[in-house]
């Protein structure tokens, strides 16, 4: 139970960074921290005490493994997070090229 609370504390640190910072790169960093916390929460739910990793070895019986389904979901989620980060960074570089600043209070004009 205390592990879940620590994981949610990591999530709320990332959330504070997204809500309160003015630099776009800091917002991207906060988004990355949120994504780490969510992946960790998924894997924490599927953990089983004193169990083995879900890989079969040559002469061991099939007993007592951790839950493999959350691991399958998180595997694709990690790579999707990388793709989203790359897209946001590309948009941020284009914004800097057009407006000359990374400050979000000065990027207010929605031109075409």
């Amino acid at each position, binding site marked *: 139970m205390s592990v879940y609370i620590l994981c949610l504390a990591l999530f709320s640190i990332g959330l504070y960074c997204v809500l309160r910072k003015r630099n776009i790169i800091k917002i991207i960093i906060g988004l990355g921290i949120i994504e780490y916390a969510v992946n960790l929460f998924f894997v924490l739910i599927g953990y089983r005490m004193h169990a083995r*990793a879900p*890989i*079969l070895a*040559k002469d061991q019986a099939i007993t007592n493994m951790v839950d493999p389904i959350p691991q399958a979901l998180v*595997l*694709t989620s*990690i*790579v999707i997070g*990388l793709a989203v980060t*790359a897209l946001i*960074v*590309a948009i941020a*570089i284009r914004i800097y*090229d057009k407006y*000359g600043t990374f400050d979000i209070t000065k990027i207010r004009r929605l031109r075409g």
Partner: protein
Amino acid sequence: MKNKEPGMTLIVKTITRLTVGLILLYGIYIVLHGHLSPGGGFAGGVIIALSFIHLMLAFGKDLALRKLGQLAASILESLGALMFLSIALLGFTGGYFFFNFFLQKGRPFELFSAGIIPLCNIAICLEVGAGLFAIFTVLILFKKSENKE
């Protein structure tokens, strides 16, 4: 003191020459043994992309783009995605979408076992590796529209 050659210093270039082939080989190993030990297509594809990025960071963009150009990376990525989709559609021979259509699955713990899973791993590795290298190339070679620096 600015060095006129592209890329980094001599120490970095020497170490890169020694290790970049090993990184590529390690990536291929993780992809091919994806059904026997941890790893799979995604991790192996990212490692292969990292080996090409290492080459570009150490030697400059001309030499790296000669090894794998931008057009070749786009074609490889589309090829990987189409191969994955066609393996999925070929499952219609068995009646379902994504059916594992090899009739015998081989002996376990061997390299040639487990039906379509190694083929799917290779398709995903091509798509992820070439796609991430294309992203990195485009982000680095972006020219500014007006002169600010």
